[in-house]
């Protein structure tokens, strides 16, 4: 849901979301428009945590980079700040000292879990933003349908997508080498 109509920047989002009246609100910015995300439910949160745990274990073991939890904001472009349910930044782009503000670029890998209220159009809008701004792998997780859509960038701002069903498995490709996951592990 759009909250305001003026075009905002990531700095505005930071300022607004740190006002006392907005405390506890989950705000994101897409093409200059601020949207409020509804607080996730139990199933959503459990899947986010489980996927995050599996991904973070692999990343820590192989020293691949840094994984962030849900609500961590990434500024993909001046007017676009998103908070993937799980985000990953490859080691080469992680500074020694992490800044206090938003991550100033797009994650290398983003996981978005679809909530009952999310429309396909909303999800497509997020996927477009990640792909346009350099994210190399996007998983869109559908808890009700128990499948995961894997988006990867292709030439000319295109994307390829593969839907992996409940009995399938996923891999991290070049982004997370040697990472493998059965879809059923995400939904147990």
């Amino acid at each position, binding site marked *: 849901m759009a909250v305001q109509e003026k075009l905002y920047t990531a700095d505005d989002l930071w300022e607004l979301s740190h006002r006392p009246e907005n405390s506890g609100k989950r705000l994101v910015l897409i093409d200059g428009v601020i949207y409020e995300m509804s607080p996730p439910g139990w199933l959503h949160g459990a899947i986010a945590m489980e996927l995050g745990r599996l991904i973070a274990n692999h990343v820590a073991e192989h020293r691949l980079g840094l994984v962030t939890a849900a609500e961590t904001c990434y500024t993909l472009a001046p007017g676009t700040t998103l908070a993937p349910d799980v985000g990953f930044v490859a080691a080469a782009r992680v500074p020694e000292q992490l800044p206090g503000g938003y991550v100033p670029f797009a994650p290398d890998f983003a996981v978005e879990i679809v909530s009952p209220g999310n429309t*396909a159009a909303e999800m*497509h809008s997020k996927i477009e933003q990640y*792909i346009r701004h350099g994210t190399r792998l996007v998983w869109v997780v559908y808890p009700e349908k128990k*499948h995961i859509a894997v988006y990867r960038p292709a030439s000319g701002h295109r994307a390829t997508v593969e*839907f992996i069903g409940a009995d399938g498995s996923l891999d991290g490709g070049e982004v997370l080498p040697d990472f493998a996951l059965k879809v059923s592990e995400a939904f147990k």
Partner: protein
Amino acid sequence: MAVQEKLYTAEEFYEYAQLPENADRRLELIEGVIHEMPPASPKHTVIAVRIAASLLQHVDRHNLGYVTGADGGFQLGPREVRAPDCAFISSARLPELPEKLFPIAPDLAVEVISPSERLRQILDKVNTYLQAGTRLVWVVYPDEKVIDVWQPGEGGGMRVRTLKAGDTLDGGEVLPGFVLKVSEVFGRIGES
């Protein structure tokens, strides 16, 4: 571009499109909002007609149904009317041509992509066709000279295969026996 902000139904949209002042406009209804499509580029229309001509030849030879052009309106939902650049609808699913909009989704939809179209619009479009019952969507990129072939996947998903120069487009289960070389689709249209 959104023309109006009131939410229209497919019937209201049809009446609106029939008004004399709208006779020459190419309109679509997307989630209840009327959108006007600007005239396509020369490359765009040449490619769409090539595919349509090739489809028509096959469909007529085997008496399979109808091939539509860029001004055909398909009702994909109560507030959703889309006009693919070209489409095929089988006579098995639509025995007679209706008076107004096509009341059901085409079996095959072809969309040629303009440079201004964004990924989310393309994903929305493909998803809308597949959810409405279209079994095959060809998304054609004139600048990249590739064709993405979208089909419904398992469990309500969708899958895509990219065809490049050297590959051949086929009709799959929707149009058995139909083939068209990708190089014929993009031949002599110049570099991007």
